[in-house]
């Protein structure tokens, strides 16, 4: 009898845990690159609006956009521009901020500057030794991201190596893994998001322009990509609209704080 009453209490507790208050749930998801910035914003939004609960599913840009098309997410994020096929789906997209994709090497590497053409040759396997670029006489370890990563798509587009990458390149599953590999391998070269760079790797200048918030804002540094929020305008609920409005008001503040490049004025890409 005692056991049964304890069981009863447990069940009662479990049920009370399930009881739904009138919380609104906004499901979002997409790019792993946008995730840190977006999560910070949604956490702050949730603490201001206790009646709203937002979830984020970090599955990658393509998954984010597909999720919006399939109505899985109310909002999707992407760290690359929409492809022509995706543009046909009647999606709206807002630019959250700009992000620079920077090329990094090990701290011991003497090379400081590469041209876009050098990058092209390294990533297509035409140049395989640092000696040819004024570095040490050692093989280059080419590090890239997995084939559907937004960072890789944006990088390949800017450097013009889509589909031409050397098959010797390592394909790692996150920017963090790329940075970790570069930090421990003196012959490695890779790319990552400007906001994620640590002092354990060396930033390279591209065509003599050092990547920074300043050079990206001025337009001198060219390997950049937008962070987008994607949604279907006709499917927005009142809560989602409120959240979008909040993002629009605060995005420059957050972007600046986290090392991304805010856009002046809100640009609406259709």
């Amino acid at each position, binding site marked *: 009898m005692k056991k049964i009453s304890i069981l009863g209490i447990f069940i009662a507790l479990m049920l009370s845990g399930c009881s739904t208050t009138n919380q609104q749930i906004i499901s979002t998801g997409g790019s792993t690159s946008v995730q840190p910035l977006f999560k910070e914003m949604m956490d702050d939004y949730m603490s201001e609006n206790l009646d709203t609960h937002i979830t984020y599913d970090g*599955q*990658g840009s*393509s*998954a984010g956009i*597909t999720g919006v098309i399939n109505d899985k997410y109310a909002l999707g994020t992407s760290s690359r521009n929409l492809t022509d096929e995706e543009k046909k789906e009647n999606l709206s997209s807002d630019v959250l901020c700009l992000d620079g994709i920077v090329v990094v090497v090990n701290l011991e590497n003497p090379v400081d500057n590469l041209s876009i053409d050098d990058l092209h040759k390294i990533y297509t396997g035409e140049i395989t030794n640092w000696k040819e670029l004024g570095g040490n006489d*050692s*093989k*280059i*370890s080419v*590090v890239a991201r*997995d*084939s*559907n*990563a937004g960072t890789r798509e944006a990088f*390949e587009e800017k450097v013009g190596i*889509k*589909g031409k*990458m*050397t*098959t*010797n*390149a*390592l*394909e*790692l*599953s996150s920017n963090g*893994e790329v940075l*970790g*590999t570069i930090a*421990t*391998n003196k*012959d*490695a070269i890779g790319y990552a998001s400007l906001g994620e760079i640590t002092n354990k790797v060396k930033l390279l200048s591209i065509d003599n322009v050092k990547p920074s918030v300043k050079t990206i804002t001025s337009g001198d540094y060219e390997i950049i990509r937008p962070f987008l929020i994607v949604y279907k305008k006709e499917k927005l609920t009142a809560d989602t609209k409120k959240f979008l409005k909040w993002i629009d008001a605060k995005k420059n503040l957050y972007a600046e704080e986290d090392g991304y490049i805010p856009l002046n004025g809100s640009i609406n890409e259709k």
Partner: protein
Amino acid sequence: MKNKNTRIDNFFRKFFAFFAIMAIILLFLITIYIFLKGIQPFLPNNKYGSYNFWGFLTGMNWNSSNKEFGIFYMILGTIFSTTLAIIIALPISLFSVVAISELLPESLAKFLSSTVELLAGIPSIIFGIFGLIVIVPFLNELPINPEAQGQSLLAVAIVLAMMILPTIITVGEAAMRAVPNSFREASLGLGANKIQTTFKVIIPAAKRGIISGIILGVGRALGETMAVLMVAGNVGGGFKFGQGNEFFFQGIRPLTANVGLDISYASGIELQLLFSTALILFVFIFLLNIVVQYVSKGGKYGK
């Protein structure tokens, strides 16, 4: 009274049989699902266009921008990394099985075997991290490494060897312990020493069990994803034979890594072909299991 008991027995027989059948149904559902998903991209009426099955099976490049999806180099990577892992793990595990079950005093043997079981319980992501921060940089610094990085076939083999050690040791130890003491006594009585007894009598008698352990280890190595993904390099194509150390130090992309790397990102025909990759892996493991059944069926002390 008897009648009532029979009824209760009958009820519970059905009750438990239901749960036993559930496992079979689950296996059946997974098989059907993987099979149907896996053959989809090769069917002529596929909505993303049909992909040539032969080209998929024999292709040496996986390049989604060029819509080129070949997995032969991954099959080679999986086969060679698993083989190498077994070659590394076999002597270590065989000797520790001998030590634990035959040579060491009971208390020390117990301690060792529970340590081995602890090793078996370590999640694969931990092995992956260990591989990434210890083994990969170590291999990278080796002077005999002709490549500029440590992510390689050898790194995968070492990590896999660590992971399958406990499987081989635990199963092997059980097999050795199952050999009746009369075998040992007879051999010792004939004047053989302990080492002779172990290697000439006990190991041959426990051979089937040890081989089952090795095959189970192969199964684990074939299916391991997370740890492998972190140290393989996941290159986009090609496989180098011969050419000195290049073979061991080349980056590879095992079948599991291919699925694990892209499944959350991919779309369209690439996503479908990831299921096909899983199907090929499934076939590998299925065949292996048939071998296990065949080997372990032949009686306890078979030749």
